[in-house]
C-alpha cells in the first residue's frame, strides 16, 4: 500500500497538472455544459485574459474537436431539426407544377395578344352584308385557344400542393388578388363574344351586355399581364445600377 502511494506521488510529480487538464478534455465532458470560472464576472477583461492565455500558445495548431459545441447545446427544437422527406416531396411537386404554370402562363400571352389584334377584323361590317366572317372566325379561334390555355395554366396552379398556412406576402399576394379580376373576365369574355356574334349574325346591332365584350376582354388581358409582372416584382433593371 505504501509502495503504491509512493508510485502515485511520483506519477503526479512527473506528469503534473497538465495531464489532468488534458484528460479533462475528453469527449464525454462537453465544455459547453460546464460552469466557467468567469461566468459571473461581468467586468472581466476578456481581452487581457486572452492575451495572457495566448502568449505561450503562439502556434496555431488545430485543437481536438472535443471542446466544440454541438447542435444539442443550442436548444433548437426537435421539430426544427427533423428531416421531413414528405414535405420535400410536396415542395418538389409544387415547384414542378408551378414551373409548368409559369411556362403555360407565358405562352398563353401569345394567343391572347393575337386575339386582341384579330379583334379588329371581328366586328360585323354592314357595308358588305354581315361583315368579315373569316376575320371573326380567326378571332373566335384565337380567343378559344386563349381560354383553353388559360384553363390549363390555372389547373397547374390550383393543383399545386399547398405548403403551410402562412398568408401570402410579396408579389404573389397581388398575383393572387388579380385572379379575382382576370378569372371571371376570362369566363365572361367568350360568353359576351358569343352573344355579340349571335346578335351580329342576326343582323342586329350589338347591344346590351354583349357590347361590353371588348371592354371586358381588354380588362382581362390587362390584369392578366399585370399578374405576370406582379409575381416577378420587384424587377431590378440592370441599367438602374447593380449591387
Amino acid at each position: 500500500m505504501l509502495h503504491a502511494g509512493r508510485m502515485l506521488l511520483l506519477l503526479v510529480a512527473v506528469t503534473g497538472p497538465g495531464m489532468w487538464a488534458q484528460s479533462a478534455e475528453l469527449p464525454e465532458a462537453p465544455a459547453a455544459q460546464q460552469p466557467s470560472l468567469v461566468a459571473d464576472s461581468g467586468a472581466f477583461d476578456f481581452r487581457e485574459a486572452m492575451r495572457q492565455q495566448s502568449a505561450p500558445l503562439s502556434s496555431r495548431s488545430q485543437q481536438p474537436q472535443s471542446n466544440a459545441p454541438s447542435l444539442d447545446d443550442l436548444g433548437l427544437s426537435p421539430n426544427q431539426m427533423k428531416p421531413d422527406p414528405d414535405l420535400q416531396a410536396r415542395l418538389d411537386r409544387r415547384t414542378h407544377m408551378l414551373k409548368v404554370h409559369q411556362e403555360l402562363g407565358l405562352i398563353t400571352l401569345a394567343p391572347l395578344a393575337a386575339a386582341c389584334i384579330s379583334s379588329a377584323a371581328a366586328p360585323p361590317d354592314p357595308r358588305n352584308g354581315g361583315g368579315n366572317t373569316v376575320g371573326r372566325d380567326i378571332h373566335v379561334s384565337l380567343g378559344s385557344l386563349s381560354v383553353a390555355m388559360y384553363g390549363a395554366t390555372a389547373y397547374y396552379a390550383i393543383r399545386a400542393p399547398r405548403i403551410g398556412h402562412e398568408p401570402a406576402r410579396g408579389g404573389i399576394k397581388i398575383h393572387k388578388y388579380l385572379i379575382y379580376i382576370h378569372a371571371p373576365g376570362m369566363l365572361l369574355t367568350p360568353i359576351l363574344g358569343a352573344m355579340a356574334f349571335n346578335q351580329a349574325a342576326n343582323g342586329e346591332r350589338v347591344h346590351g351586355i354583349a357590347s361590353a365584350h371588348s371592354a371586358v376582354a381588354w380588362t382581362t388581358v390587362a390584369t392578366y399581364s399585370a399578374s405576370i409582372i406582379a409575381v416577378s416584382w420587384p424587377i431590378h433593371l440592370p441599367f438602374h445600377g447593380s449591387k
Partner: protein
Amino acid sequence: MMILWVIVLVFVYGIGAKAQADTTFVLESSVLTYHMSHPVHEVDGVSRGAKGRGVCGAETCDFLLAAPVKSFDSGDTNRDLHMLQVVRGAEFPVVVVKLKIPMADIAMKDFECELEVQFAGSTAHYSHVPFHQEINGAEHKITGVVPATLTDFKITPPSFLTVPIKNEIPVKVDTMWKMQ
C-alpha cells in the same frame, strides 16, 4: 490519508485549469442575410432565428451557429418556398456554421477564421474568411460575409425567364455574442 488529499488536490486543480481554459459564448441575437442576384432580380433573405454557442479552449475558440432554413424570409412567401425546395430545406432543415478562431485572434478587431458550413446536404469549407469584431464588456459583436456559392453545395441554380441566378450567394453574418 495524505495520498487521498493529494489526489483530491490534483483533481481540483485539474478541473479548475479546465474551467479557466473554457470560456463559453452564447448567441444573444443574430441577423443572417443571404443575397441572390439575377439580371432582373436582387433579393435578400433574412433570418433572425439562429442559435449559437462558442467555447474557447486552450488554443482555439469553436463557435457553432445554426439556423432553420425556413427561417429565412425574403419578403415573398412564394420565393421562400421555392428557395426551401431548391436547397432541399425539408430534408436538411438546418444550416450549420462552424467557426474556428485561433485564441491569439479572439480579442482582435479584425481576424480571419476557418469556416465549415453544412447546408443543403453538403459541407463546404472556407479558409481565411475575414471577420470584424467589436467588444463591449462581455458582448462581442462579430460580423462578416461568408463567400458561399451554389456550386459549393451542389445546388442547381433556379432560373427566372430561363435565365439562372448568379452562382454567388454571399451570406452576411451579423451576430452578437455574450460571454458567460
